[in-house]
């Protein structure tokens, strides 16, 4: 075969350059969907990988300078992505490749958009209205949980409750939390919890949730049926979906949103240590308050006993008197000791009285003299006439005598004693 005069003979470089220019012009910037494989992270920070579908593949690269839009770490082997970029040829190797400027997991954008639309719709319907929210009991004892029996949510909830509030009882209503069947299973579990709460003993709170996962993993918690079931549940509900930044629309429909299942447990139950401390402080207060009351009562009684009661106006006297009556028994016990003092004092008085008895000096030899028939003792000789009969009383017995002489002088007296 002859090469014609007009035929252009390409060099390899020229061909590769021409192919590159043609591809770039023809396709411009496009979206490409494929699964990531043969992923290599170069030391330079560039990301080399292959995008493929069931029948074909194309090599791809994302340069570091373009990576700001999505962290290279977020791209994983096996992930189906939507890549925005340009088709080109790497001229030195004649390799046809795709240069991606943006990578995003498939479904994520569409999923987020769908969730946002649903959120607006349910919000307009009033499903997220704060007026619908019921308070969570302060001391829940029967805690319902809708989640997977094998997931992180149950494990986390259990460990928090064991530490903070082991008086609680957890009732698990099992459901898958991701995948096709998850929304209908979640709805069934929430409804079963509702029936259980009504048929058996009421549940104080129902926690609906799961541990962290990808946006698609969490999608069941933004499913309209699940959101409506949470909204319609008469048990106070707590939505606890994924990690801190994750969310499900159930977060808005529930009575309380918790960032994680562990946080749900922390929010819902009190800490037993705090209650034990508070109770201990309360017992101390009771003792002190009671002691103060006893002291105050003792002081008041004291006041009453001192007779202040007599200065009070009529009604208050009556009240005080009743008060006194009511306290008599206690008083008897309280002043029992003083009664013993009084007995002792009585003996003393008796002794004083005995010492002042007029008969007592006669014992020592003194005597008392009366004019016969009179009761007043004679104190003045001049008042006694001659020949009068006088009676002298001694300690033992009496003398009857007749006056023969009287004298004012205490030293001269003559008595005719017969």
């Amino acid at each position, binding site marked *: 075969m002859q090469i014609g005069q007009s035929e252009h003979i390409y060099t390899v470089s020229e061909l590769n350059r021409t192919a590159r220019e043609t591809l770039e012009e023809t396709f411009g910037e496009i979206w490409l969907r494929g699964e990531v494989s043969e992923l290599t992270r170069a030391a330079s920070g560039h990301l080399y990988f292959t995008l493929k579908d069931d029948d074909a593949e194309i090599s791809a690269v994302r340069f570091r300078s373009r990576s700001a839009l999505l962290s290279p770490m977020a791209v994983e082997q096996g992930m189906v992505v939507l890549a925005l970029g340009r088709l080109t040829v790497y001229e030195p190797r004649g390799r046809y490749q795709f240069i991606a400027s943006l990578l995003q997991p498939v479904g994520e954008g569409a999923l987020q958009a769908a969730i946002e639309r649903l959120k607006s719709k349910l919000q307009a319907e009033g499903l997220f209205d704060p007026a619908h929210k019921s308070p969570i*009991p*302060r*001391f829940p*004892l029967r805690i319902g949980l809708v989640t997977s*029996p094998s997931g992180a949510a*149950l494990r986390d909830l*259990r460990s928090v*409750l*064991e530490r903070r509030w*082991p*008086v*609680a*009882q*957890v*009732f*698990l*209503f*099992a459901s898958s939390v991701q995948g096709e069947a998850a929304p209908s299973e979640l709805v069934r579990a929430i409804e*079963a*919890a509702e*029936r*259980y709460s009504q*048929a*058996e003993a009421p549940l104080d709170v129902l926690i609906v949730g799961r541990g962290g996962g990808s946006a698609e993993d969490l999608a069941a918690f933004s499913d309209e049926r699940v959101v409506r079931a949470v909204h319609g549940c008469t048990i106070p509900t707590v939505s606890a979906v994924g990690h801190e930044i994750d969310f499900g629309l159930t977060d808005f429909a529930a009575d309380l949103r918790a960032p994680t299942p562990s946080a749900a447990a922390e929010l819902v139950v009190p800490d*037993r240590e705090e*209650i*034990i401390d508070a*109770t*201990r402080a*309360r*017992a101390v*207060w*009771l*003792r002190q*308050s*009671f002691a103060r*009351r*006893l002291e105050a*009562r003792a002081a008041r009684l004291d006041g009453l006993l001192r007779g202040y009661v007599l200065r009070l106006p009529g009604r208050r006297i009556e009240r005080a008197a009743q008060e006194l009556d009511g306290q008599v028994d206690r008083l008897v016990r309280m002043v029992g000791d003083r009664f013993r003092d009084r007995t002792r004092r009585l003996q003393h008085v008796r002794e004083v009285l005995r010492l002042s008895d007029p008969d007592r000096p006669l014992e020592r030899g003194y005597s008392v003299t009366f004019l016969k028939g009179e009761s007043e003792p004679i104190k003045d000789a001049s008042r006694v006439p001659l020949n009068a009969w006088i009676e002298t009383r001694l300690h033992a017995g009496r003398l009857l005598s007749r006056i023969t002489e009287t004298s004012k002088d205490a030293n001269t007296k003559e008595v005719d004693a017969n």
Partner: protein
Amino acid sequence: MTIEDALGKLEEITRQLEDEETGLDASIALFEEGLTLAASIKAQLEEAKLKVEQVIEKTQGTFTLDSLDLT
């Protein structure tokens, strides 16, 4: 009595003891009841052990419980 009831009762006792009108005899009874309640609350909280049950709905409205307690 549940913890909540006991705590409520303890609060009520405190209120009554704060009230000057409460008589001495009533105070003694309240004081004793308060201390008993405080001890029982503490014991309940310290001795409790978490129970976890899986609820299985056999037919609609009839349930069985399956203990998931850790041994």
